[in-house]
């Protein structure tokens, strides 16, 4: 199937809406990959407090959106005090993965501003509304 120029045919899902987290692992929303062949997950840091994260950023997956297991090899670096305004990326061939994915982000005991978004692409059926694309509104310029 042809990939539309760029991200025009993608669906977006906030896994972590911009939030300040502190000391405990953030609870990520689930990314439901059904109907898409490829996923990109982007973790963004804002101001990271003066403590490293307790664990590497990583992903988990599930068949039922209930019981999640770590995705082997998904550890992708441990943000630290100097890791402000950066992005960590995962690219996933969804055909090899379970239907649902979540992010695991476990900050140290200081406030950290973070966000995470999932981008689903190569849709079996192209999203044709803002709702299906996972956004509130879209403008094409």
């Amino acid at each position, binding site marked *: 199937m042809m*990939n539309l*120029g*760029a*991200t*025009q045919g*993608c669906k*977006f899902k*906030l896994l972590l*809406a*911009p*939030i*300040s987290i502190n000391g405990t692992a953030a609870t990520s929303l689930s990314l439901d990959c059904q109907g898409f*062949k*490829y*996923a*990109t997950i*982007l973790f*963004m*840091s*804002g*101001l990271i407090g003066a403590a490293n994260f307790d664990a590497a950023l990583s*992903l988990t997956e599930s068949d039922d959106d209930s019981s999640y297991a770590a*995705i082997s*090899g*998904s550890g*992708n*670096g441990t943000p630290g005090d100097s*890791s*402000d*305004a*950066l*992005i*960590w*990326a*995962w*690219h*996933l*061939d969804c055909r*090899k*993965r379970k239907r649902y994915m979540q992010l695991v982000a476990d900050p140290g005991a200081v406030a950290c*501003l*973070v*966000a995470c*978004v999932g*981008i689903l*692409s*190569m849709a079996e059926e192209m999203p044709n509304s*803002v709702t299906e*694309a*996972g*956004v*509130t*509104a*879209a*403008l*094409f*310029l």
Partner: protein
Amino acid sequence: MSFAGNQDSKVVVLLAPIGIDDAAATSLACDCLGFHYATVLFMTGLTDDADYDALSLEECDTSGGTYAAITGSAHTDPITTQDGLVWRWDLDLRKRKRFLKVVADPGDGTADSLAACLAILSVPDIEPQSAADLGVVARLIL
């Protein structure tokens, strides 16, 4: 040719996750040189008890120059109940100036509104070769 998914897209932080209150957030500039298409995502976290005053894009030929509003880029202002949502712009960069910024101006609430914004640059002239070329600290292909 564009790779499957967004494997060859560059991502650029316009607003790192931040709390802002009653003043337009200071957007970083996104340099679109070498790419033909951009998708800009504005994401809200907890929005304080005042509606936004503006949400739009602006452009300029130079990074530090005077930015001009992009006609038609103003989204309906996010309101206080719109937490955890995404606003999107898709841009054909052949019609645009080289540098883009977002204008996000939350209203005057009692606390900060949490927000973030990033740009995804795609359809490159030359495929990015490294994590740095792709605008990320690290990336994994699984």
